[in-house]
């Protein structure tokens, strides 16, 4: 769209223009509503908080926002592909490529990750009887760095420079020879900055779980969600630095003229190895916590402890280990030779074994139980058959020779959405419905929850099942059009209809949140007849939840207490030292400075790089000078 102002003509793509208008209008409306409801103090409280529950809520809130954005992109993709040779709006060529690139990138890094990390923040400390995360200040830094990275990737669209090399950013397409625009720089810096946040979050989780469990809660008595969090955090700690390095090298290739991924000495295959050594563990990073959620939810709503607890934990650990030994299954078509290909085919198949163990354990948890079809349980029940479809197609994909046909076709698109939506997203929804009372003291509405579930899950299968067939009929992924003679019209058309059903389901979810706050159903400590510690504290969880500190003697302490002790948990004599809560503007300041720093690189402004770099470093100094431990010790001495 071209328009004229002061005798000059300006060009702005109509989709970007529309996005600007939408964002500005809704921003203004939001500002008005917040001011009218006098909510600025609440916002300030959240922005400066270091409390695990509030940070968890912030993660979940931003994940939901980004889910809406990337979801809109999914609908755009589906509309453009609804009929052959479609010419819808601007979404052909680069615009389409940008849409699926940011869809994939945002969904993985800024939806799946924060949904799970958010739920960990809310639930894990309460489940293990900790007062807060081990490092509350660092927890806030993690969140704000994550958000800074997310904003970078999201703002690229508004700067008409979206990343456009796929979420995998394969070199040499992603180096500046072929994509000189700023788009892939946003990708590099966005993921880099949020990646630091993720690594810090993982360290925090590990220390919290290792150091801050309630007295008596041995690792062998820990619920499965904290277990999966612990193992996931180790995966993050190993996998994310690989991404950091890969992005770092890519940055050098893009900005400083090195040739790691091109030219004589370099090779584009290096990028693929680095990316997938990170990338495959990443898909387990976003599925294992969901497994943990399902274990807790299924056990609660079957009124039984989880079947085969020990094998559940071992299975998680084995999946985590094997997850590092399968990355080449994304590279079967590169031509690394039969030995390499079959080795990685076998390791990939092996992962099916521990995954199968988990599925059967969940089924047998329900056996002889008493199943209540609450909304969180519905999502968990929807997960089992859906995820099994994704699992069996996963085994089919591991067959190296056959994968040469599936690879980069819609079959793969179907497969990974079955695992990521069927696993991660359904798991996150289950977790949100399940722990909502602990976040806000109210329950989400059950009827709307059921609408949400059925629309979303039915829509899901309608969207993604036909993609298997489109793939087998020779439809490559990442194409913006196809021909009538390709015979994939019917699959694509059905798929588009399904996508809109999923959209309706998501609207039902958002409406549900709105309604639940408008007409709140306040709940007590234990709305679901729960089994673990988090249900023994008030809803929403207070700042100092465990006073007195419970003494844990079984896997489901609260359940045992309700059966044998009239609901009272045994008390521990001494409590663990609690982390120190602070409120601080520093975390958001640091993240903001990191964003400026990144932008200075993206737009090659050396002077700004220097200033922002000094700015970032000075936050380290400030932090050292304002350490709350010093303050608290001094206060204690004065007493």
């Amino acid at each position: 769209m071209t328009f004229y102002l002061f005798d000059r003509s300006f060009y702005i793509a109509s989709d970007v223009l529309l996005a600007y208008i939408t964002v500005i209008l809704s921003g203004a409306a939001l500002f008005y509503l917040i001011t009218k409801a006098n909510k600025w103090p609440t916002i300030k409280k959240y922005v400066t908080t270091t409390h695990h529950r509030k940070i968890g809520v912030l993660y979940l809130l931003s994940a939901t926002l980004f889910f809406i954005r990337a979801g809109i992109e999914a609908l755009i993709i589906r509309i453009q592909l609804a009929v052959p040779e479609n010419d819808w709006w601007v979404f052909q060529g680069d615009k389409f490529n940008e849409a699926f690139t940011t869809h994939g990138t945002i969904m993985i890094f800024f939806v799946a990750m924060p949904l799970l990390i958010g739920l960990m923040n809310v639930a894990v400390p309460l489940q293990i009887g900790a007062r807060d995360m081990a490092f509350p200040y660092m927890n806030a830094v993690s969140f704000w760095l994550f958000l800074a990275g997310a904003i970078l990737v999201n703002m690229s669209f508004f700067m008409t420079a979206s990343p456009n090399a796929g979420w995998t950013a394969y070199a040499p397409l992603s180096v500046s020879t072929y994509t000189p625009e700023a788009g892939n720089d946003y990708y590099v810096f966005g993921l880099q900055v949020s990646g630091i946040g993720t690594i810090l979050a993982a360290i925090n989780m590990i220390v919290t779980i290792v150091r801050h469990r309630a007295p008596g809660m041995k690792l062998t008595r820990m619920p499965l969600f904290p277990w999966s969090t612990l193992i996931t955090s180790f995966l993050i700690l190993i996998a994310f630095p690989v991404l950091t390095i890969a992005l770092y090298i890519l940055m050098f290739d893009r900005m400083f003229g090195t040739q790691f991924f091109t030219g004589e000495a370099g090779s584009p295959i290096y990028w693929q190895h680095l990316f997938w050594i990170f990338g495959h563990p990443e898909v387990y990073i976003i599925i294992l916590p969901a497994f943990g959620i399902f274990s807790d939810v299924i056990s609660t709503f079957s009124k039984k402890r989880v079947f085969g607890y020990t094998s559940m934990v071992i299975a998680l650990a084995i999946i985590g280990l094997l997850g590092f030994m399968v990355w080449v299954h994304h590279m079967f078509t590169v031509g690394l030779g039969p030995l390499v290909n079959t080795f990685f085919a076998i390791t990939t198949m092996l992962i099916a074994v521990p995954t199968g163990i988990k599925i059967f354990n969940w089924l047998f948890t329900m056996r002889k139980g008493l199943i209540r079809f609450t909304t969180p349980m519905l999502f968990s029940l929807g997960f089992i058959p859906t995820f099994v479809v994704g699992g069996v197609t996963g085994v089919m994909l591991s067959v190296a020779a056959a994968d040469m046909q599936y690879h980069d076709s819609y079959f793969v698109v179907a497969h990974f959405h079955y695992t990521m939506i069927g696993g991660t997203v359904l798991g996150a929804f289950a977790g949100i419905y399940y722990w909502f009372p602990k976040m806000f003291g109210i329950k989400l509405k059950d009827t709307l929850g059921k609408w949400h579930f059925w629309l979303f899950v039915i829509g899901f299968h309608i969207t993604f099942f036909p993609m298997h067939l489109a793939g087998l009929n020779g439809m490559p992924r990442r194409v913006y059009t196809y021909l009538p003679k390709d015979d994939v019209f019917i699959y694509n058309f059905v798929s588009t209809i399904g996508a809109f059903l999923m959209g309706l389901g998501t609207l039902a979810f958002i409406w549900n949140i709105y309604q639940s706050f408008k007409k709140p159903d306040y709940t007590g400590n234990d709305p679901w007849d729960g089994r673990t510690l988090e249900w023994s504290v008030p809803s929403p969880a207070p700042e100092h939840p465990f006073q007195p500190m419970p003494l844990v003697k079984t896997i489901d302490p609260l359940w045992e207490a309700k059966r044998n002790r009239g609901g009272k948990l045994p008390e521990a004599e001494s409590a663990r030292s609690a982390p120190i809560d602070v409120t601080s503007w520093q975390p958001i300041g640091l993240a903001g400075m990191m964003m400026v720093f990144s932008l200075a690189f993206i737009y090659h402004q050396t002077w700004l790089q220097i200033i922002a770099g000094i700015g970032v470093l000075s936050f380290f100094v400030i932090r050292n000078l304002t350490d709350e431990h010093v303050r608290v010790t001094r206060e204690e001495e004065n007493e």
Partner: protein
Amino acid sequence: MRKIYMILSSVLLILSGCNLRVLDPKSQTAKDQSFLVQFSFALMMIVFATVIVLFVWFVWKYRQTEENKHKIPEDEKGNRLFEITWTVLPIILLAVLAVPTIKITYEISASSSATPPNAVHIDVTAQQFSWTFEYQNGVVQTSELVLPKDRPVVFHLNSDDVIHSFWVPKLGGKKDVIPGKERRLILTPDEVGTYQGKCAEFCGKDHALMRFETIVKTQEDYKQWLQKMKQKIE
């Protein structure tokens, strides 16, 4: 009634997967791959069916009703025997799948490293966003690939810019085309016909349009065609 029947039959047609290109192979390689697809699918259906049966059975049988609402299920930690069963059986199932996987993966790779004596050699060059095919006698074709029936064809795959991937679903594949190093793929078409070829690795703006037509001719026709093209350039 007629209408319902028609809808049902078209749904069946969609589901049965007949005519799906990958499952309608026209070369030995693609046939092996198609076999693997179907074999692994069949094995996996055993797993899927087992899970679904247990799932429906348990969810139905153990749902909460008005009568049993206040019952507390018996505590149950696990069951060694069951757990061993669902560890060992999948391992056996996967072993069954692993055998043809290894065999066929080796066969496909091996056939790509040796060069059969009567092979046809074609230099394939991929560039954003088209394919060029160069024959041994100097004939150069764009976006149209002509192959002889029943003779092994050695594709020498090279890229001028980014990574592409060479894919003819009915003949098998695919093989990435990576700048800097030649890769090879050997296919032996065994039926005359016209098949779609596509770039399968995202390569930029018009990746979607980077297609080619593959025409398999009898050896006679192929020879004639090559000669005719040769004369054209001379």
